[in-house]
């Protein structure tokens, strides 16, 4: 076991797969010579050379489109979209082309490609560089979507994404890049579609993603210690495929569901999970489903405002105390 930052674990995951498979190529803006604006790809150029690690013009449609064309003709590209907000400038390539090609061609076309992108708030960058848009991707049939919360998960899920025969978007949470954690030595390959139960409680089930997983865990400790409320915490990890079974089982045990989402409220992944639980787990529910999200506003830039916008530990604790009996 080595201790790595989330940032270094990203590079380690990419390197592991490039080492293993010559078809894996990597492209993006400022990723090669500069090692990425978040320093998540430092060393890849030196290690794998300029044929496999390529700097691109500011042309997100070309980057993602080229990844698509390369994937359908035998390569396994990893494309970086610097900030997840910029998925909007290539959304047609992602949502209309990549997501649909296999289906429309009745399976003739395979797209084993990965789009990695830095998601979420916390850097005081304002509304166009801080969004959590994993639900944009989740809403489009044909895309697989993961959002790892730890260094080990980001390495393992990147590797799983590269090996997957379908297009996968990996949402790396910006606010976690400098987080440290244990990462097993040697080859690490995770599995898409598996949630993880991080903590078992009796009174409610908190379902969270990425940064919110850590806040949920902290909140659960406080709830237990200070308020005698015992909470299960589930890290969703993979939105598509979704490990609905694990979530339903954990909610059934506690009778309460609380989702914690960094994204603005409307049509977030929490809504989808809430609707699944309200259908399939209805008779086990002891009370209303509670969603804790950012308010439905663009994200403000100033530190105090940004901090007060996305769900804090205090807000999670407060909401659960108030809403869950």
């Amino acid at each position, binding site marked *: 076991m080595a201790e790595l930052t989330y940032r270094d674990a990203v590079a380690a995951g990419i390197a592991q797969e490039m080492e293993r498979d010559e078809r894996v190529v990597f492209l993006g803006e400022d990723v090669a010579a500069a090692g990425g604006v978040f320093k998540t790809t430092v060393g890849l150029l030196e290690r794998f050379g300029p044929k496999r690690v390529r700097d691109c013009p500011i042309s997100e449609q070309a980057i993602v489109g080229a990844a698509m064309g390369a994937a359908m003709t*035998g390569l396994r590209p990893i494309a970086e979209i610097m900030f997840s907000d910029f998925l909007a400038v290539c959304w047609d390539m992602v949502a209309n082309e990549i997501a649909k090609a296999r289906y429309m061609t009745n399976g003739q076309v395979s797209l084993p490609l990965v789009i990695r992108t830095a998601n979420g708030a916390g850097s005081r960058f304002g509304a166009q560089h801080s969004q959590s848009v994993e639900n944009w991707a989740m809403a489009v049939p044909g895309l697989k979507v993961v959002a790892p919360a730890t260094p080990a998960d980001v390495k393992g899920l990147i590797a799983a994404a590269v090996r997957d025969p*379908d297009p996968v978007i990996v949402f790396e949470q910006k606010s976690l890049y400098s987080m440290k954690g244990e990462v097993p030595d040697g080859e690490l390959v995770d599995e898409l579609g598996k949630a993880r139960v991080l903590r078992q409680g009796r009174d409610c089930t908190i379902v969270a993603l990425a940064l919110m997983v850590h806040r949920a865990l902290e909140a659960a400790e406080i709830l237990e210690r200070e308020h005698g409320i015992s909470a299960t915490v589930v890290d969703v990890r993979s939105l598509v495929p979704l490990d609905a079974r694990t979530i339903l089982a954990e909610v059934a045990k506690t009778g309460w569901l609380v989702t914690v989402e960094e994204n603005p409220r409307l049509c977030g992944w929490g809504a989808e999970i809430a609707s699944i639980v309200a259908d399939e787990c209805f008779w086990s529910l002891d009370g209303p489903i509670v969603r804790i999200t950012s308010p439905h506003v663009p994200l403000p830039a100033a530190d105090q405002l940004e901090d007060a916008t996305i769900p804090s530990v205090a807000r999670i604790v407060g909401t659960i105390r108030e809403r869950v009996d």
Partner: protein
Amino acid sequence: MDTTAKRKKAGAAGDIGEETRLRLYRLQVELRYCEKRAYDLFLQNLIKGTTHLSLGQEAIAAAFGVAMRADDWTFCTYRGHAHTLARGASMTGVLGELMGRQCGLLGGKGGSMHLTSVEHGAMGSYAIVGAHLPVAAGAAWSAQYRGTGQVAVCFFGDGTTNIGAFHEALNFAAVWKLPVVYVCENNLYMEYTPISSVTAVEYPAAGRAAAYGLEPIIVDGNDVDEVYRVAQAALARARAGGGPSLIEAKTYRQSGHSRADPAKYRPEGELEAWLARDPIAIYRKRLIDLGVAARVLDEIEAEALRKVDEATAVARASPPPAVDKIEKNVWANGGAAWRN
């Protein structure tokens, strides 16, 4: 036979041999007949969705179809029946797809705007204007990376030159010196709007070539020999590592934009003038001038018609796709499950 001398002349009249010329003729005729059939089937309500015909533009698809290597790749648009067939995709598969039948190239899943036949290098028809230009660049990158000598050829319309993806793809392909040939079929219109009314330059593609460090190339898109020559040169250049080309082929869409369009916006006389320059009629005359016997061409036409008739019959006899196909092939595992 006394036609031997004439035949030689046909071959000698240019760099294109007679055998190739007859292939070019046959392919154009097949494309034409198949498009006409699609139109008839639509009138018979056997095609339910939309269709975008290439009537009048067949020379371009045909010339590239003949010039390309079997393992080269084609990327085309919703107006892609001809380009797909020109690579050898089955006519039954094409007509079947238009009719939404099980035998369709895409099993009815894609429809007329998404014809694809990967086994023939027809890597998809794309219905969102401009999207396939970056994708073609990506395929070319893959060929370059693997050193296979394959070339990606990407067809699109004049209207497509005004969308962002065009610009990004051309610059990207030029900077990476990718083996891709971009072919703009300038048929004077986007859907119903004349391209000249919405474009800052006279030649929507050639007028932009310099912006990507490329030579402007303009070709008469209704002269299959000319297109063939230009295609050969561009393909050779790409294969030799010389990077991308951007070709503007001037042509005309003899029908409306799609099945719903009577094309009333065309100025009087325009259609007639272009019909007089119909690529197939021109070529038939040229071949005869070069000494090819009319009955040879008649026979080619008859064979093409038979082929279309046969394909129509097979496609019509094919059942509609089973509804359980709806939840198939979203993923590589054949299924559509998004949860456990």
